[in-house]
C-alpha cells in the first residue's frame, strides 16, 4: 500500500479514469431511469382507483357500472362519475398529457382522502365554477400558485372556454388536478362520463384492476389502471434498456481495456522492484498478492469515489433542474449502482490477468544481473 500512497502520479490517473467511468454509467442509467420513474410518479395517483370509460358512448355507462357493482371480485365503494380533460405537463423528455378529473363536489373529499391528500391550502372548487385544486408537484411543474390561471380559452395546451383558476393546493407528492364536474358538464366536450371505481380495501385495488381489464375486454369500454400504465411503461422502455445494456457493455469493455493497458504499463515499470524482491526471497505468490491487493484497493477506491461524485453531481442536478419542475429521479438508484459494478470487477480481472501473465514467465536474475560495466 506504501507504493500507492507514494506514487500519486500513477494512482491518481487510474482512480480518475475509474471515477469518470462510474460517473458516466451511473449518470446515464440514473437519468434514463428517471423517465419511466416520472411516468409512474405522474400517473401514480391512478393506483388509488380504477377508471372505466365507455369510449365516447354515454349510453354504455349504466351497463358498465352495473357489471362492476355486481361482479367485482372485491368489495368496492359507491361508483361515481367524472368528466375528464387534459393538460400538458413538462417532463425531462418533453411535454406529456395529464388528466384533469372533474368530479361532483360531494365526491371530492372522499377522493382526496383516498389519495392521502386530505390537507388543503386554499379551498375546494365551488359547484359550477371555473375553479380547480392542484397538488404541489403540478404547481411546481407548471409554475402555478393560488389564484393563477390554469386553463384558459387562448391556451391550446390547457384549454377551457372560460378562465379556470387555482383555488387550492394539496401538499402531497401525488400528481392531482381536480375540477368541478358541473362546470365541465356545461362547458367541456365530449359529454361523456368516466366511472371511478375504488375498492373498499385500497390494498385490493390492483386485484380489481386485473379483473376489470379481463372483464371489460371486448365490451365498449376502456379500463385505465395503474397496473396497466406500469406494464405499458415497462414494455415501452424494454428496447431502450436493451440498447443501454449494449452501450454500457461497450463502455465497460473500453474502460477495462484502457485500464488494463495503464496497469500493464505501471506494472511493467515495477519489474525491477519485483525482480529485486524475488531475488531477495519474496515468493511469486507474495508479490502477486501484493499487486492484486493494490489493484483491488485502487479499483474499490475509484468505484466508491465514482459513486460519491455521481451522487454529488446528481444531487446538484436534482436540486437545480429536477425538483423545481417536480421531475422524478432516485438519487441512490439501485439499478444504476448495479450497472456500475461490472466496471471495477472487469478492471480487477484485467489487472489480475495482466500481472499473472507477467509473473508466469518472470526471471528475476535476468533483471538484477544486467551489467553496467
Amino acid at each position, binding site marked *: 500500500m*506504501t*507504493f500507492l500512497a*507514494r*506514487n500519486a502520479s500513477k494512482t491518481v490517473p487510474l482512480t480518475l479514469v475509474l471515477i469518470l467511468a462510474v460517473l458516466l454509467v451511473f449518470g446515464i442509467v440514473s437519468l434514463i431511469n428517471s423517465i419511466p420513474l416520472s411516468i409512474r410518479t405522474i400517473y401514480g395517483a391512478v393506483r388509488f382507483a380504477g377508471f372505466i370509460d365507455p369510449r365516447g358512448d354515454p349510453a354504455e355507462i349504466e351497463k358498465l357500472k352495473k357489471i362492476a357493482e355486481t361482479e367485482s371480485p372485491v368489495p368496492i365503494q359507491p361508483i361515481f362519475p367524472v368528466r375528464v380533460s387534459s393538460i400538458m405537463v413538462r417532463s425531462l423528455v418533453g411535454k406529456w398529457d395529464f388528466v384533469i378529473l372533474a368530479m361532483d363536489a360531494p365526491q371530492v373529499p372522499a377522493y382526496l382522502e383516498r389519495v392521502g391528500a386530505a390537507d388543503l391550502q386554499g379551498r375546494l372548487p365551488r359547484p359550477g365554477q371555473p375553479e380547480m385544486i392542484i397538488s404541489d408537484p403540478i404547481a411546481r411543474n407548471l409554475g402555478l400558485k393560488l389564484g393563477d390561471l390554469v386553463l384558459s380559452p387562448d391556451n391550446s395546451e390547457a384549454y377551457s372556454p372560460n378562465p379556470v383558476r387555482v383555488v387550492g393546493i394539496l401538499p402531497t407528492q401525488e400528481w392531482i388536478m381536480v375540477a368541478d364536474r358541473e362546470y365541465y358538464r356545461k362547458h367541456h366536450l365530449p359529454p361523456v362520463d368516466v366511472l371511478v371505481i375504488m375498492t373498499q380495501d385500497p390494498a385490493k385495488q390492483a386485484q380489481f384492476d386485473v379483473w376489470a381489464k379481463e372483464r371489460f375486454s371486448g365490451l365498449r369500454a376502456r379500463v385505465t389502471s395503474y397496473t396497466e400504465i406500469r406494464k405499458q411503461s415497462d414494455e415501452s422502455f424494454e428496447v431502450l434498456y436493451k440498447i443501454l445494456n449494449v452501450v454500457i457493455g461497450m463502455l465497460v469493455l473500453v474502460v477495462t481495456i484502457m485500464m488494463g493497458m495503464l496497469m500493464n504499463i505501471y506494472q511493467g515499470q515495477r519489474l*525491477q*522492484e519485483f525482480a*529485486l*524482491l*524475488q*531475488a*531477495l*526471497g*519474496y*515468493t*511469486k*505468490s507474495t508479490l502477486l498478492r501484493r499487486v492484486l491487493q493494490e489493484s483491488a484497493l485502487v479499483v474499490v477506491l475509484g468505484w466508491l469515489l465514482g459513486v460519491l461524485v455521481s451522487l454529488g453531481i446528481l444531487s446538484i442536478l436534482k436540486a437545480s433542474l429536477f425538483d423545481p419542475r417536480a421531475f422524478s429521479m432516485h438519487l441512490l438508484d439501485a439499478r444504476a449502482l448495479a450497472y456500475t459494478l461490472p466496471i471495477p470487477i472487469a478492471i480487477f480481472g484485467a489487472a489480475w490477468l495482466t500481472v499473472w501473465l507477467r509473473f508466469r514467465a518472470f526471471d*528475476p*536474475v535476468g533483471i*538484477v*544481473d*544486467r*551489467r*553496467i*560495466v
Partner: protein
Amino acid sequence: MIVARSVSLRYEDHGREIYACREIDLSVHPGEFLGILGPSGSGKSSLLYLLSGLKTPTEGVIEVDGANLHRRTEVERAQIRLQRFGFVFQSPYLLGYLSALENVLVARPEVDRRREATEMLDRLGLGEKAHRHPHELSGGERQRVCVARALLGSPEVVFADEPTASLDHTNGLAVVELLNAFRGAGSLVMVTHDRSMLNGADRIITISDGQIVGESRGPADS
C-alpha cells in the same frame, strides 16, 4: 555450508550449446570470505546465482547443509534466500518510493528490525540519511544502503555480485571493507573482475570459460 557437486549451467543459443558453468565442484565454508575472480563473461556471476539458488543447474547438485537445494520447492528456496542469505547486486537496486531505512527493512519483512536497520545504517555512515529516498543519495551511498540491506539479520551467507562495479575504486574498496567488517560470523561470497577488491578474502577461485582454473588461499598466495 554450501557445496556444489559437478554443477553445470548450460543453455542454447541459436541451436548451439553454451556452458555458463561446467562441472564445478566448490564448497563455501561457514564464516569464510570467498572471492570468485574472472574476466567479464567467464561465468562467475552464473556460479554465484547457482550457489544462491537463484538459478537451477542443468547438471550436478547444489547442497545447503547437506540437502539438495533444487529438490526443494520454489517457496522453500525463497524462504532460504529470505531468511539465511543476503544479496548485493552489481547495480545499487533500491525501491525509489522507500527511504533508505525502509529499503534496508525490505530484506527481512517478517519481524520488526527497525532498530537494527537504523544501527546498521549508522555504522555504515548513513545514520543522517536514513530517511532520504534513493534519488537523494549518491551512487556510493546507495550501494552502502544495499550492503546494509544484505547484512540485516546477520545472514549465514552474503552473496555479492560485482558490488563495486558501479563505483569508483575508492568507494568500491570502502563497500567491500564494510561488507567484510560487518558480516559477523556469516560467509561472504563475492564475484569481481578486480583482484584488488579481494584483499580481505580467505580464498579466491579463478573462473574462465565457466570452469575453475585456479584457487588460492587469500591474496598473499596469488
